[in-house]
């Protein structure tokens, strides 16, 4: 590992421009509600700015950023922040504007909705490990360290999360077919 003095500089602007959407999406996957995600993303980037000099560019930046998102989402859950009572219609319109071209819109939206709904069926501990390992493809050991749990605990949560997620997907898909 490089000492800080030997590390290259990583400008915050570049990190924000390149990875804001990643942090936002990760926070949503980790259970931050749509009405809160902008504020939580902001808070996450304030922390990232404060710690950026400690980032080692020889390591993947997304794995590094993921840890910030993970901790922020954990704090969010602990605080159970619910600052807004109503979700504005703007959110839906804006999200729709981000989706792919017309031909893919329905499929992409359905896939995302299905995954989001299945993730919501997991409790936070399992959800965090599942998102980290299966969507972010981070090693279990690294995830365990980030969460402050043993590797065995993380592996066990992952195993249970996979089973629960699969079950949830089957159930939700079946329900959709019946509509």
């Amino acid at each position, binding site marked *: 590992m490089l000492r*800080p003095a030997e590390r290259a500089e990583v400008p*915050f602007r570049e990190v924000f421009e390149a990875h804001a959407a990643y942090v936002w999406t990760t926070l949503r996957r980790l259970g931050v509600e749509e009405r809160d995600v902008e504020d939580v993303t*902001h808070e996450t980037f*304030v922390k990232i700015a*404060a710690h950026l000099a*400690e980032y080692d560019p020889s390591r993947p930046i997304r794995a590094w950023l993921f840890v910030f998102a993970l901790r922020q989402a954990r704090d969010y859950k602990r605080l159970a922040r619910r600052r807004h009572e109503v979700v504005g219609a703007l959110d839906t319109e804006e999200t729709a*504007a981000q989706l792919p071209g017309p031909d893919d819109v329905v499929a992409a939206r359905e*896939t995302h909705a299905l995954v989001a709904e299945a993730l919501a069926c997991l409790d936070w501990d399992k959800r965090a490990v599942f998102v980290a390992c*299966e969507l972010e493809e981070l090693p279990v050991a690294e995830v365990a360290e980030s969460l402050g749990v043993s590797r065995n605990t993380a592996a066990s949560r992952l195993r249970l999360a996979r089973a629960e997620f699969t079950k949830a997907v089957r159930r939700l898909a079946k329900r959709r077919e019946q509509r």
Partner: protein
Amino acid sequence: MNADSGLPPDVRALLDAERGHVEMPTAAKARLARRLSPSLHASAASGAKTIGGWKAIALKGALVVAAAAGGTFALRHERAPREQPALSVRVAPPPVAFVAPAAPAPEIVRAPEVASAPPAVVVRAPVAKPLDAAERLEAERKLLDEARDALQRGEPERALEATDRHAARFAHGTLTEERYALRVRALVRLGRGVEARALASEMASRFPRSFLLEGVQRDAETIP
């Protein structure tokens, strides 16, 4: 990475499709950029600054952002004690001579008179204005930048001195983790391995989830 996941192929395919999903609205990104603009502009202006210089700017940006957000975010885990509490001395009978510590002439305010009692004299020593949270963090940052710069110049003794000053002024400051990290690094550079490891261990118990801990512990183990 988790190929042996035990997930059925169709579920894995679902996750593969989801992995590329980006949810953030363009307008939200623009709003966030505005909210973070102090940090972003600082970054753009930093040019060829050193890591220390960059960190200084990043922290300053974070400060401004925190202040703009009500000062509750980056600074929330510390209630800043007053640096030098205003000193008020009430004595009777008057007059009283009071010498303020290392200060210009004291301001003498005559207190309201009380019946059947000699008038009291309130002597207030002129003191430095207490730092607000932002100024306090800025002061912390300056001290630690000094330590960091000293390390980069190959002067670990000076780095230790700067961290000593930080510890004296801000024993439980916002940047205490950073102080630990810099002290360990300075001790390592001075070849004081036992102290470095002891300090790293203390840091681990105080800040078990610190982002800096891994590097600090590794540094501490580099010398016998």
